[in-house]
């Protein structure tokens, strides 16, 4: 018998723990990611001869509630038909009772990897606007993502932007269901005390003075999401307050990351947030204002909807005034000059030539 190394033991252990997909048309190629509720595998679709990503409920969470949640998650994603949301192809039940669903396998880079490659601020803003649009579409369907972060956003091979991991998404009041017309407040993902996320002691940072926001489990809810990208009300476990504006907060943190290439953190001397322009003076005041408005601790001060944030990003890209920033005369002039820099250059060149001509002809 051949001796098997510790590394190979770990590999074989992972292989032996893989689900049996023989009742499906899929064959596992490798594990892609493992979460608390499910594991995502790269798999081959034998009928269509293409690769897909398959999420399978973890065997340790196989009671009826878990099955229903997983099924609901697949249904939520499936109904969000948008180019910025990864499509679900198929859902089913394995022989051992576990729910699985197959979705598009996205080849590309995560947003954090994309940022590290040094594209221009405008390129990063365009990607961010696409993220906002996908989230806005979900909001219009009554779905709040609740775990938006760069690691859950993929930039595909052709520059397409896809928002992934809707596993903790929530259906909210006020969102219309385009298929059934129903409005609901049912959680689509993990919720309730049974799914309490264990929190690390990282504090969400506050862009404005105010009481420090400390993440904790509250009596009325469960903290779901990723600290650092999570809205203060979400971090406090106030689930009844979690709505579109909570996603807007997370989008604000993502924008902060895209502008500064690092997650928000307080200054060394106090708990206040370092403003984006402290990292890079090329970031405009308008862009900073959009970012800080989205990240307001007071949810009433944030953009109400992701589509409003997207609109301000569009204005930023077009050199138009943004709703988050009240411009003075100097700002208006600066923005006008920046927007019309070729015209200004042309006029300046013309004037310079006239001066030179005047000067030389006068001799």
């Amino acid at each position: 018998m051949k001796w098997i190394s510790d590394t190979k033991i770990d590999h074989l252990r992972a292989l032996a723990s893989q689900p049996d997909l023989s009742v499906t048309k899929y064959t596992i190629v490798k594990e892609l990611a493992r979460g608390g509720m499910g594991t995502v595998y790269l798999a081959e679709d034998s009928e269509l001869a293409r690769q897909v990503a398959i999420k399978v409920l973890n065997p340790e969470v196989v009671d009826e509630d878990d099955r229903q949640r997983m099924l609901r998650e697949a249904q939520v994603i499936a109904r969000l038909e948008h180019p910025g949301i990864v499509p679900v192809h198929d859902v089913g039940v394995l022989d051992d009772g576990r729910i699985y669903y197959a979705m598009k396998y996205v080849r590309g880079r995560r947003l954090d990897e994309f940022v590290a490659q040094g594209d221009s601020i405008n390129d990063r803003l365009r990607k961010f606007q696409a993220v906002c649009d996908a989230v806005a579409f979900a909001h219009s369907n009554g779905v709040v993502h609740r775990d938006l972060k760069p690691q859950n956003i993929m930039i595909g091979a052709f520059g397409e932007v896809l928002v992934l991991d809707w596993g903790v998404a929530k259906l909210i009041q006020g969102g219309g269901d385009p298929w059934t017309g129903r409005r609901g407040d049912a959680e689509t993902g993990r919720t309730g005390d049974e799914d309490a996320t264990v929190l690390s002691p990282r504090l969400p940072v506050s862009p404005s003075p105010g009481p420090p926001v400390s993440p904790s489990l509250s009596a009325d809810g469960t903290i779901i999401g990723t600290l650092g990208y999570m809205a203060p009300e979400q971090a406090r476990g106030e689930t009844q307050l979690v709505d579109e504006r909570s996603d807007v907060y997370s989008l604000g943190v993502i924008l902060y990351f895209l502008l500064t290439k690092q997650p928000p953190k307080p200054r060394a001397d106090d708990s206040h947030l370092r403003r984006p322009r402290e990292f890079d003076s090329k970031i405009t005041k308008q862009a900073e204002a959009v970012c800080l408005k989205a990240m307001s601790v007071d949810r009433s001060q944030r953009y109400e909807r992701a589509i409003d944030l997207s609109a301000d990003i569009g204005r930023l890209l077009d050199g138009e005034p943004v709703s988050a920033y009240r411009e003075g005369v100097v700002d208006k002039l600066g923005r006008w000059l920046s927007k019309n820099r070729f015209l200004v250059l042309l006029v300046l060149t013309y004037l310079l030539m006239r001066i030179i001509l005047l000067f030389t002809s006068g001799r």
Partner: protein
Amino acid sequence: MSRRNRVNDPDTDIGGPARKFPETNRSAIVAIRSEEPHVRQRAFGTILDSYWKPVYKYIRLKWNVDNEDAKDLTQDFFGNAFQKNYFADYDAAKASFQTFLRTCVDGFIANQRKSQQRLKRGGGLEHISLDFQGADNELAIHPPSPNLSPEQFFEREWVRNVFAVAVETLRKKCDDTNNQIRFHLFERYDLEESTEKVSYAALANEFGLTTTTVTNQLAAARREFRKIVLDKLRETTASDEEFQNQARDLLGVEVI
């Protein structure tokens, strides 16, 4: 590993003389209590397959004995265990079988030393032929980590042995069904120690197959491997609960 002289029952060898694999998943820990001698012998063979090497290495590490003494002690321990039916006393409610076995080994060696019977070891016991040379080579090439206690080392070696036996069983099963290509692919992709991971496409090219065939063959091999590992666990556990616990420990997940 040759076991021709082990208990005069060729069926206790892996696969038996006809290289057929046991149809039953019945627990060897339960079967060891059988009134039928041949059932007990078969069960003992199963336990021996899974544990002799971890026990041998454990004795060398924990009791700090040379290879010759360790060989004799391993032989004597299993010989006595079979003759006196030690394993029939196992109670799954009290501990895992590994822990019980390890305690038996420690007790056996302590008694041997105390009564100095180790010098007249082997008296009246059936000689069991085991591949001690192979185990010694493994110890020489892959010495135990100083960070592991003898007990942790024993657990690790048990896991290693379960997987090694499962790999060997898979190889034989593929041979028997004339599907050697399946094992060769599994061996190349999942077992080979290499810093560079070979791709499915490269394997397809190497074996003259399509990438889809490689994917399907590897998936089938892994399914079979998982089944064999679980069968091995069922054989060496006494109850469903213990089986679930072992599967959780070994595979890191619940087995449904």
